């Protein structure tokens, strides 16, 4: 099962290749534009409309692709109809996070819900590995339902950090070793030691 590391590594590779192509294309165009004219200007309407169609397919196709390949999208959209194995409540107030359970023990492959409420400002709820890579996050908006359903498929210890700015006093809202996942065959090698800022 792909996790955020796999998804983001793919992004890094694909976007890196795309950026290289885009830079090369403009570099080549800049060179060619100063040279004598030939017939290859791409000025035919058929080419133009094909290009527009390709853009539309890529733009919308990306979302269809991720819906079918990124594991958390379907259950995020359908979370109201999935019975979670556990619900963890997190309350935010005065730049402090209070957890119903700490650490939050999660079984492998179980759907769990992190249910965050804020009594004052807008905060964020982010789950991070020890090497600070992001597993998942959501906004924590006051007067609003902030429920993140997640499923872990690797053993690991994760820290929680507020991912939204709530004023200078909230710049370092971190709960170390907040989530412990056990029972999987695989270990999350980036989440085996204590994380979070000292």
């Amino acid at each position, binding site marked *: 099962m792909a996790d955020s590391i796999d998804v983001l590594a793919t992004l890094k590779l694909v976007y890196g290749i795309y950026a290289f192509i885009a830079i090369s294309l403009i570099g080549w165009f800049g060179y060619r534009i100063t040279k004598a004219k030939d017939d290859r200007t791409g000025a035919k309407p058929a080419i133009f409309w094909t290009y527009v169609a390709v853009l539309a397919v890529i733009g919308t196709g990306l979302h269809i692709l991720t819906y079918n390949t990124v594991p958390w999208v379907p259950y995020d959209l359908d979370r109201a109809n999935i019975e979670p194995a556990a619900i963890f409540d997190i309350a935010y107030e005065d730049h402090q996070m209070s957890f119903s359970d700490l650490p939050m023990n999660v079984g492998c492959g179980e759907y769990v819900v992190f249910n965050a409420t804020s009594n004052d400002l807008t905060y964020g709820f982010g789950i991070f590995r020890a090497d600070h890579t992001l597993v998942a996050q*959501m906004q924590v908006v006051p007067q609003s339902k902030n429920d993140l359903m997640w499923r872990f498929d690797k053993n690991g210890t994760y820290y929680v950090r507020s991912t939204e700015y709530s004023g200078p006093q909230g710049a370092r809202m971190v709960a170390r070793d907040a989530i412990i996942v056990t029972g999987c065959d695989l270990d999350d090698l980036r989440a085996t030691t204590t994380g979070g800022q000292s």
Partner: protein
Amino acid sequence: MSFVNTLINGHEGGLKHEGLTPMQKISLRFVVLGVLFYGLAAVEGMMMRVVEITPVAAIDDTHFFAIMTVHPMVGVFGSTYMIVFGAFLFLVPFFMKKPIFSLKVANASWMLIGGGTFIMWLAGFLFAYSPLYTLYWPLPVDLEQFKIIGGLFYVVGVALIMVGTFLYSYNVFKTIMYTPAGWDKQPSMELFKDAIGFRAIGNWLKKRKTEHIVDLPVAAIARGTIDVGLNAVVITAAGVLLLIYMFGTLFGVGMEKTWVDALLYKNIFWWGLDLIADGLVLIFVAGTWYILAMMITGKDLFMKHVARAALFVEMVVSWTVWSHHLMSDQGQSNLLKVLSGEMVTALELVTQGLAVYITLVTLAKARPLKMTNELKFLLGGLLGFMLAVPAGIIQADLGMNRVLHNTQWIIGSHVHVAILVGLTMTLYSAIYLLLPILTNGAKLYSQKLATAHFWLHLIGGIGMGSSMGMAGIDGMLRRSIYVDGEYNTYMVLAGVFGCMLLLAFALFLFNVVMTFGVKGLIGIYLPAKSDTSDCVPAPQEA
């Protein structure tokens, strides 16, 4: 000619400000102030870059976030608005071959936006007011963290900017629609409809095309100006709300913060902000590319009817994409996330990609072209959006947003590449192109400096944005402080590239000062000697 002499009087006589028309002077006032505000934003950006590398005693958390609050405001309103408005207030009457509706209103605009930006900046500098530009409710009125005086400075500053913006919008539309003294009655409503794009949509659907009475560049400016005005309405409304709560606190009136629904506020506020990010920028930029391509080549635009219609589509799209900023808000409905956040946003790849294509083909059809400053900066601007728009489309996806929202990817690969490379290089192209028109032929001091400016800005902008973006992929947040060197490799790289950007600006500024001369620069802000309402002097006056 000695260095000091050139510095004072300018290169080859410098800017002869006595011969400038009032319209030229007003545009130059906007642009010069906008360039200086860009410098301020660049210095602020570098201060934050340093803190991201290593903690600095002089910049504590409060100070850091105060800088982060004013940095984008100075960049967007103080710099971009000023340069864009200055150029467009000149170009609308220039292309329409009629006088601007009101020189006084145009003068008031730059004073209000410039003054407002400075007052807003003081809110951060003097009082460390730091709710960030997002103003998420109820942070801006959290008076346990912020001083009320800071909030008042901030709101008053932004209010002045918005008044200046309204005046700009009013002046643009009045210029398009009004009948100058001594002219035959102008068809105001028809001009308005053509400027907005109704006729373009009709032409797209009809076989028999109706002739346009408003040039494409003016239509592009008008459509972006609609978004500018709508954005100003939303920001002004937010400012009024903040004032009510601040004065309530000041006078001891108990006002519950829960009276305002935070998520609804966030939706409305992002709807307005997105008119800048996705509407104004993309429409103005596309329109500016078309203007630049036509002026550089002297030829008509490729697929000009489609370009016109697409600008209208872009305007409508820009009203319906705000939800991509709320894809990590679980209270937001799935329908809005998928329809507005994902699908409609994806259309921006189409509209912006179409603008890139039309501009490139227009240039290609006019080959061979000389690689002038305006052409190379235009290509840089195109590249910036070719990199930044797909980065934005990627993050406007339910799967990717879960692991990218509020990371440095957003602000680096998307925002900074879009603004610094895409938008700013497009504006530099316009500045280099308009320089001889606005100055009656002032000669650039150094082409070598202009070339160095181009390369340093291009490499610095892409390098800094991509270094930040890679840090974001590795989990670095955009509105947090890291003190243990977690992302030092990326941050050192971003700092080095940031230095290149700052150096690029310093070279550009030096080149401009030496071109105009200090006397010429001061002269821009002195009253015009001529009282003509024309954009440029008549040939015998020039």
